[in-house]
């Protein structure tokens, strides 16, 4: 115990600061050469850190100061949002990254913890979007309630697939969810009451009469309205992150891991496999639904083309790129997957090529993901030493 308490926060704190500054520079970068230079500088920096064997120390420091590190990263996000307070595009990017983080945390519970494959993440995200649109438009429900309700409905819609998801494994389960993703998009396109292919307008989020789509003015300083959404989504993502971590570090986390690794052994030790798969699957879809709801209200407009199978693939690629089951990995990968294509924008049609090449490159050298998940623990000081 004493040994853990001595682990200093300084390396973790410095990393949080470094990551924030780097993200800030990247967000603010406009010329293509500058972006490329930044990426190169980032790669060199990582190589230097690796050569100096500092990753171990940083990792230990983060592991010993989880809460503080999380708070530092959240503070870093707030700082970035304030720096770019007048730039709607950059603020929108930050909000998008945060939303994807939330949705991917959900997929991570499904796939990373319990091994339940879901290639229809964008569909459940879409359910959240449409539920938010309908509820906000046609009911007087407080919007703060619309969010969890959208999550619940996404989870309920997910239950349509629960039998095939439980009964099939691996590729077959993947196929079932892919089929659902295609069905969902078609369903939206042909349903006129949901706007058909033209989509729907979504009212802005309101909290106690205060509309989130109005710019904020504090002491004569004007901040873009996206700041409202960033604040809200940051809170949602932080709560989602904390709950996912707690889940991972509980008996439930152990059960889910056991189910993912070996169903036969799990059954022989009395684990109710169905129960944990349904829980993981439902929780994951709930996350996706909540993320979708707030995203739709921020965008103000949704259409079926936002929820294609391709979008589901992006969500899955985030959790695989980050390292399956790794919450922090998901955070990092969400930044990379959302920001990089945007930053290569002036290269037009080549940007996805460059971005895809980069993803392949990363997975080639780190097949286990950018920040692979460590050995599962309960987060006890000193681990399970007796």
């Amino acid at each position, binding site marked *: 115990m004493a040994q853990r308490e001595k682990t200093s926060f300084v390396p973790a704190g410095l990393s949080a600061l470094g990551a924030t500054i780097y993200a800030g520079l990247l967000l603010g970068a406009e010329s293509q050469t500058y972006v490329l230079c930044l990426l190169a500088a980032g790669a060199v920096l990582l190589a230097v850190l690796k050569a100096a064997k500092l990753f171990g120390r940083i990792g230990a420091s983060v592991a010993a100061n989880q809460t503080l590190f999380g708070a530092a990263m959240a503070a870093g996000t707030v700082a970035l949002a304030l720096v770019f307070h007048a730039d709607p595009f950059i603020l929108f990017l930050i909000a998008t990254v945060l939303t994807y983080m939330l949705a991917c945390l959900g997929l991570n519970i499904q796939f990373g913890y319990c091994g339940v494959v879901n290639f229809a993440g964008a569909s459940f995200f879409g359910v959240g979007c449409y539920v938010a649109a309908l509820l906000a438009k046609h009911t007087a429900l407080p919007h703060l309630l619309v969010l969890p309700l959208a999550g619940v409905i996404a989870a309920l819609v997910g239950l349509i697939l629960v039998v095939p998801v439980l009964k099939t494994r691996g590729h077959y389960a993947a196929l079932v969810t892919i089929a659902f993703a295609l069905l969902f998009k078609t369903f939206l396109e042909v349903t006129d009451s949901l706007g058909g292919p033209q989509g729907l307008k979504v009212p802005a989020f309101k909290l106690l009469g205060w509309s989130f789509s109005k710019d904020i003015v504090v002491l004569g300083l004007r901040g873009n309205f996206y700041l409202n959404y960033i604040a809200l989504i940051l809170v949602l993502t932080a709560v989602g992150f904390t709950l996912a971590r707690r889940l991972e570090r509980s*008996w439930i986390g*152990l059960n889910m891991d056991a189910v993912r690794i070996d169903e036969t*052994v799990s059954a022989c*030790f009395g684990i109710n496999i169905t129960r944990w798969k349904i829980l993981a699957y439902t929780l994951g879809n709930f996350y996706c639904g909540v993320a979708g709801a707030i995203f739709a209200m921020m965008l103000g407009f949704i259409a079926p083309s936002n929820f294609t199978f391709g979008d589901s693939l992006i969500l899955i690629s985030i959790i695989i790129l980050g390292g399956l089951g790794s919450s922090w990995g998901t955070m990092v990968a969400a930044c990379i997957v959302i920001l990089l294509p945007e930053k290569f924008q002036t290269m037009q049609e080549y940007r996805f090529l460059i971005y895809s090449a980069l993803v392949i490159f990363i997975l080639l050298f780190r097949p286990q993901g950018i920040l692979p998940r460590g*050995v599962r623990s309960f987060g006890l000081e000193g681990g*399970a*030493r*007796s």
Partner: protein
Amino acid sequence: MSKDVLLAVTRLTKRFGGLAALSELTLDVERGKVLGLIGPNGSGKTTFFNVITGLYEPTSGHVVFDDSPITGLSAQEVHHRGVSRTFQRSRLLLPLSIFDNIALGMHLRQGKGLWGNLFSRTRLLAQVREFAHEAGELLAVFDPELARDMSRPVEGLPMISRRRVEICRALASRPKLLLLDEPSAGMTHDETMRLVDDILLVKKRSDDLAIVIIEHEMSVMERITDHCAVMNFGTMICEGTYHAVAKDPRVQEAYLGGE
């Protein structure tokens, strides 16, 4: 009846298509005794374990455990009744820590509510500490060095340590019946002898525990079994003490092939 029967198997049959892996097997396991299952490869020993533990559904026959029928119950339910097992090829959860693997055996005593697991961390961690202490004590009986740091993942451990963790995992559930499927597989002679000592230790710790062990290493059987049953072609061809069985001509024939 003088025998205190824990597991009573009557005319148990398991067919895979045309092949009868078990055919009309009748066999009793007494409470607190060690039964050795002997037989050539493919004689149905592991199938027997898989049927008892609910991984396979029997084609016909009855299994009564602790005075209640368990025929055709799921693996999960059979475990609830008090049966734990190890596997022929060690099946630990390799990426997980030693403690997590043993804690799997304590599954039935763990809190399963979502609320308790997510929101009462203090109580959860108190239970984790308690179980970690228990797991540490159990493991230390076998190997104090292994018990010192249970946060290590099992994938880095040598085979004998893995076997020990696997037996601890099965014992952690406090079973009435322990099924050991070839615990010496993949180990050297010295390691096997140490494992036998471990199993004898297990027996000493709990009088009531019945063990069924499948093993090809005859020296193991000689040292630890109270009783042996010899299987061939899915049925029992003879039973008795190890020495009686070893001398039986039918057994020699089963192993060496008869006319």
